[in-house]
């Protein structure tokens, strides 16, 4: 006799999704992370659009990841056109990524994950008893917003980052204002570590962790570099250009997000994967934060992604301060984009959005119009691994009742910080009737 565990709507995640698990004699027959968010059709929308419009269109995939989508798009377009951005441009893009990470992680750790640990249905309910703690999270979110707004020109859907550089350079007073805000944020990042260190680990299963993360060009960055490292004891490097061939995306019936595997194995991306692959590049304050929270690597517990995000909050602030100081010392606020000469060709870019690896791939014609586009998001990459974690939890759970089990399942799903809006992705079609190439 089988039973169904169903969580119709997973709360406190971005977008619309649920969980369905069918159990028969304590064995899971199927575990589904159901993504029923409507299709976005963005890749189809890009066809025929000019290169200068592309980053603006793709940033609308999501508001919380709009910097990630916009800059990954620009990076892919520059790869297609053979453009190498300057040091200043790369640093400012790195800074935007750190701002996005601060905002996203602060929201997730304080407003989405923390209520689970403390037994509240929402951050609003939690704020009645923990106002100072929630206020820390909101101040950090505001700090991330400030960086994105100052460099990107808007808090979401940035307009200042363009192919070849920036629309306008940062003024010295803008750099100093961000530096001052980051210095104030140091105390909040320490408070975040202290708070998360008090959260008791949940009774969740431990599974094998195959993870993947971008190997940054320098330091602990999210933008620069084009090599992805798959790690499970040993490293397996894969270039951005070959990533799609290696992971073998496939459509599944229960989800509008494709699933990916490496040699048949699900893998995890995101903060925990980044720490696992690039932890040696952490600064001293972030490394100390890991110790204070009792986070040891490699960790096989998906819930440790919450702790990993808190480590990155610390690292992001320190890295952003370093970048700003370098720009101040060099007397530059970035490079204004010059003339861009489009050309026919393909470009692939991989970056680290807050939730993990993000890939954009474009093919342009000689006029600089999109012929084909593909976007692979971290939530889609995580979907198969999340389903395996849910199944394992059900089979190994010592939860005393269905309510406790459901809570654990929701915590696991939320620990992946899924951005369901980003993950929906139309099944690949081969339009033979028009002679067009494969689309998505």
């Amino acid at each position, binding site marked *: 006799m089988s039973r169904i565990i169903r969580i119709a709507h997973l709360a406190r995640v971005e977008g619309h999704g649920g969980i369905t698990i069918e159990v028969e004699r304590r064995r899971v027959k199927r575990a589904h992370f159901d993504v029923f968010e409507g299709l976005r059709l963005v890749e189809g929308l890009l066809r025929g659009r000019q290169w200068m419009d592309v980053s603006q269109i793709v940033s609308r995939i999501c508001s919380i990841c709009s910097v990630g989508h916009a800059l990954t798009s620009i990076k892919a377009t520059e790869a297609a056109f053979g453009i190498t951005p300057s040091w200043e441009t790369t640093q400012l893009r790195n800074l935007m990524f750190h701002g996005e990470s601060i905002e996203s992680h602060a929201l997730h750790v304080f407003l989405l994950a923390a209520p689970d640990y403390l037994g509240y249905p929402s*951050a609003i309910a939690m*704020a009645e008893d923990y106002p100072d703690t929630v206020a820390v999270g909101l101040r950090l979110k505001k700090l991330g917003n400030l960086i994105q707004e100052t460099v990107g020109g808007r808090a979401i859907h940035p307009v200042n980052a363009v192919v070849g550089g920036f629309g306008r350079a940062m003024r010295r007073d803008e750099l100093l204002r961000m530096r001052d805000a980051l210095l104030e944020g140091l105390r909040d990042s320490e408070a975040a570590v202290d708070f998360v260190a008090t959260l008791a680990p949940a009774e969740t299963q431990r599974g094998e962790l195959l993870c993947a993360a971008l190997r940054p060009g320098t330091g602990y960055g999210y933008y620069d570099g084009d090599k992805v490292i798959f790690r499970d004891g040993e490293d397996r490097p894969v270039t951005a250009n070959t990533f799609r061939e290696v992971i073998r995306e496939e459509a599944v019936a229960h989800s509008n997000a494709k699933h990916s595997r490496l040699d048949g194995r699900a893998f995890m991306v995101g903060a925990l994967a980044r720490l696992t692959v690039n932890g040696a590049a952490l600064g001293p304050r972030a490394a100390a934060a890991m110790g204070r929270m009792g986070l040891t690597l490699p960790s096989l517990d998906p819930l440790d992604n919450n702790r990993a995000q808190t480590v990155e909050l610390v690292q992001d602030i320190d890295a952003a301060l370093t970048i700003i100081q370098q720009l101040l010392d060099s007397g530059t606020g970035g490079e204004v984009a010059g003339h861009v000469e489009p050309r026919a060709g393909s470009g692939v870019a991989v970056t680290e959005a807050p939730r993990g690896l993000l890939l954009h791939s474009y093919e342009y014609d000689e006029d600089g119009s999109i012929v084909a586009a593909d976007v692979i998001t971290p939530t889609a990459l995580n979907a198969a691994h999340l389903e395996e974690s849910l199944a394992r939890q059900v089979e190994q759970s010592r939860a005393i009742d269905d309510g406790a089990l459901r809570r654990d399942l929701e915590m696991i799903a939320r620990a992946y910080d899924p951005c369901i809006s980003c993950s929906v992705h139309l099944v690949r079609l081969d339009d033979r009737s028009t002679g067009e190439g494969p689309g998505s």
Partner: protein
Amino acid sequence: MKPTLLVGLGNPLMGDDSVGSCVVDTMRRRGLVPTGVETLLAGTDLLRHADRLAGRGRVLIVDATADGRPPGTVRFLDLPLDDAIAGQPSAHQLSALEAVRLLQLLDPAVARTRFTLATVSVAAPAVAEGLSQPLAEALPHIVEWVAAALD
């Protein structure tokens, strides 16, 4: 005490969802904002503007609602509405109700502020620029009601 603040919420790329922003923008352009009242077009994220809300005697927020009433229906609700917040369904943006409730819990300067939510009933918002015809026709009346509520 800072002046009364009139806030318009909504996404201009989502058709009727933008009615809150349209009301405030129309009042600005036509000189219908009462003297001494400040205005704010807040997009879809009220939390981001917490600093602008604090320390005021009164804040009037105009936002769209898909409540099944005829498009253009305006209701004025004094906040907070505790029973309207059962959980936290969305991750990355709180509704106006949720954002006000959260900020009042965290900031005494917001807690002392009198908040009024003016809801404008809309049909299901969809990707589009500008308001639907029924709402566009109702806009002058909505503007009048909101302006009257500020007097």
